[in-house]
């Protein structure tokens, strides 16, 4: 108890114009400790870590490393003081190679002038090997999938011998198998005396990795707790300030087929996908990363073009040559990459929400502002936007709240078929429960919903029926008692790789 903690936050506060993101945050982490940082969306976790890594400066309070107070003027100062950080949003330059990205800002050089590309690539490969040896450090990072790019972020944090490694949702795109390897890496870091701050909305991960955790709510520390002493439910209660009711799945599926996919194929990945989607049905889609789920949703949303096949809605064939067509047909997509495909950062919550339903809000020429504000308030209340500031630019909201605004967009547009791509990626337990609830409510109201998710419990919890995709095709359709994690995993692995007893070791969730 009297030993000097490796990392200590002392009375850290951060005020943004109009928002108090952190108030008087104090807690400490010892050397060799992996420490969880938990809280709902907007609790202030990322803000705290951004202060730690020198991106923001605190409004009040300070940080101490090994008992010495430090103040970082910029990210380089933090890095030099031994802080490594994995940011929640991918911070990468698409046109640079993996290795260049990993060494960005601290390149290895030959004779102090030229970049030592080979050496960088060799060391990058070393760092990557711990989690995914298949990533080629020489390719432009923009050609990688999100999951791989996240792994690169992790590997970058391992390059330097850091005293503190802060991880802000490092696994939001990763599979459980990849998480397992990350857990080993973290254990290794802890053995070397590194303090690890671990932020994740996946509580099981935090419980698996960390002995202790600090729980935050609305910018203040609720408590620092020993996880071994607490059941998950209690932690959740501390995070959200109330008990979350565990709900069970109920189906609202009715007889009528609303959407029929006939042999859909895309130019790139999707091959010959057929299924029916009923009124009030919740259809889950599971599969490995890269199995074509996102592409399938983009086809249904009109964002990509079909190379063959047909889509029918209410029995009538529709041509979806743009998202506009799809929206007119009652289809809306909540995309996977929120920052890139979801939000218009400078615009307000209202504008972002109203974007797809301009016809509704502007029946003639001008936007009916009163009606717009009324509807926006109603929808945002329903999705429980926090803080409830409808005119604030959406970029100032946390990821979870941005997601809520996008969902609100489709509610406002009166969409009948909702496509969710990883709807709870980067979203906290509280909001997750709210979003599950919302999705089920939508189904109960007669909406048809497709949910793509890499979290199998999520698919199983939500879906009436699950399509398992493998290499662009539907490998299986699971329903009722057949619908379980093991079955999904078994069907998701490509045939050639499947060996007896190995199903769980694949890249599918289990």
């Amino acid at each position: 108890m009297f030993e000097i903690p490796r990392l200590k936050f002392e009375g850290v506060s951060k005020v943004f114009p109009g928002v108090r993101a952190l108030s008087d945050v104090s807690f400490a982490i010892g050397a060799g400790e992996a420490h969880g940082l938990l809280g709902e969306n907007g609790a202030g976790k990322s803000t705290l870590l951004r202060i730690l890594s020198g991106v923001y400066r605190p409004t009040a309070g300070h940080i101490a490393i090994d008992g010495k107070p430090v103040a970082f003027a910029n990210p380089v100062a933090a890095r030099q003081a031994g802080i490594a950080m994995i940011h929640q949003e991918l911070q990468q330059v698409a046109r640079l190679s993996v290795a260049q990205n990993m060494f960005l800002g601290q390149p290895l050089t030959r004779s102090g002038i030229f970049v030592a590309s080979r050496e960088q690539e060799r060391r990058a490969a070393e760092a990557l090997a711990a989690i995914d040896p298949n990533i080629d450090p020489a390719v432009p990072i923009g050609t990688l999938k999100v999951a791989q790019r996240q792994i690169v972020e992790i590997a970058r944090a391992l390059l330097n011998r850091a005293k503190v490694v802060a991880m802000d949702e490092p696994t939001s795109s990763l599979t459980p198998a990849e998480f397992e390897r990350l857990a080993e890496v973290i254990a290794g870091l802890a053995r070397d005396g590194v303090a690890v701050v671990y932020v994740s909305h996946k509580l099981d991960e935090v419980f698996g990795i960390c002995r202790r955790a600090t729980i935050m709510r609305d910018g203040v520390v609720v408590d620092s707790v020993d996880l071994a002493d607490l059941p998950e439910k209690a932690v959740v209660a501390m995070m959200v300030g109330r008990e979350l009711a565990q709900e069970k799945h109920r189906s609202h599926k009715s007889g009528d087929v609303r959407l029929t996919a006939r042999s859909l194929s895309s130019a790139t990945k999707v091959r010959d996908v057929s299924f029916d989607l009923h009124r009030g049905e919740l259809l889950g889609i599971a599969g490995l990363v890269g199995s074509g789920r996102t592409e399938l949703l983009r086809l249904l949303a009109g964002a990509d073009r079909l190379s063959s096949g047909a889509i029918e809605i209410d029995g009538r064939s529709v041509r979806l040559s743009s998202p506009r067509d799809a929206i007119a047909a009652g289809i809306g997509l909540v995309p996977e990459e929120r920052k890139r495909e979801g939000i218009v950062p400078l615009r307000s919550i209202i504008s972002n929400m109203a974007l797809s339903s301009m016809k509704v809000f502007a029946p003639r020429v001008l936007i009916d502002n009163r009606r717009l504000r009324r509807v926006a308030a109603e929808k945002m209340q329903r999705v429980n936007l926090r803080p409830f500031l409808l005119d604030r630019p959406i970029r100032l909201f946390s990821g979870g709240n941005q997601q809520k605004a996008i969902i609100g967009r489709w509610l406002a547009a009166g969409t009948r078929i909702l496509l969710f791509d990883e709807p709870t990626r980067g979203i906290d337990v509280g909001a997750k429960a709210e979003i599950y609830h919302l999705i089920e409510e939508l189904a109960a109201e007669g909406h048809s919903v497709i949910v793509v998710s890499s979290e199998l419990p999520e698919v199983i919890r939500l879906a009436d029926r699950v399509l398992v995709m493998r290499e662009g095709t539907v490998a299986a359709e699971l329903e009722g008692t057949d619908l379980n994690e093991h079955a999904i995993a078994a069907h998701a692995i490509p045939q050639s790789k499947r060996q007896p007893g190995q199903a769980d070791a694949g890249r599918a969730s289990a």
Partner: protein
Amino acid sequence: MSDISQAITGRPGAAFVSRFSMRDAGTLIGLVVILGFFGALVPGFFAERNLINILQQSSINACLALGMTLVIISGGIDLSVGPTAALSAVISASMLMAGAPIPLAIAAGLAIGLAGGLVNGILVAHVGLQPFIVTLGTLSTYRALALIYTGGNPVLGLPADFRAVFNGSLLGLPLSVVIVAMVALVAWIILKKTPFGEYLLAVGGNEEAAYIAGVPIARTKIAAYMISGLLAALAAQILIGRLGAAEPILGNLWELDAIAAAAIGGASLMGGKGSVIGTILGAVVLGSMRNGLTLMNVQSFYQLLATGLIILAAMLIDRVTRGRG
């Protein structure tokens, strides 16, 4: 739930006022500083007559800059406004000289503006070329067309009836000022109150997200360029009404003034951001500067110097009062 009900009823007025001031106060302060400067040094600068002169002299640039603002908001740029105006001017003028009815000649001129904008828009939106380069190319092309069409000669001696259309005055203000004020009002309404305005801001702010949200990207961009072309053509009509002649070399370097006005007014050339009020203020800043320097009889080299420095100063004031971004 007080915050919710407040959000519902809102204080839309208050929100708008505060949004106005954040964005446009900087430009307004810049304008006030410049006006104060010249007012102190130039006797008669604040004479009503001179203020009207300033407005009139700013009106053409303001007209172009409004179109430019919409294009810039959509994430583009339109370098071809000057040549578009020239083409519109010489075609209207030669129709008038051939005895065409005035409304027809004006309509044809405006249609040329729309057509020029349409070509720019299609090359940007459908072909996917960079706006800067597209309009750099059409800058030369349209200018060449105007020169070829007229053989390089100005069209002189436009009928008095036509000139009267743009040369009258209303409530003591020159008609050109009134017309541009109306254009500004329409542009403001478009940007703040119509779906198209939302679309412009969304397309410029995040094209990918706008696409997924069902915004008609191509149509929005094309419309922005067409409005820019239309307003360039309108500026051309006002100008030839004033000068009584249409030249194929009219509108040289207009694009730079228009971009400067929009930027001084807070438009971001990265797209997604811009303001009608700011642009108008920006155009008046530039107009007052020209007017004041002429009245002070500043030698031409020093006028050039002052132009450069004032553009920089206006941006600095703007930057300081508005904060980063």
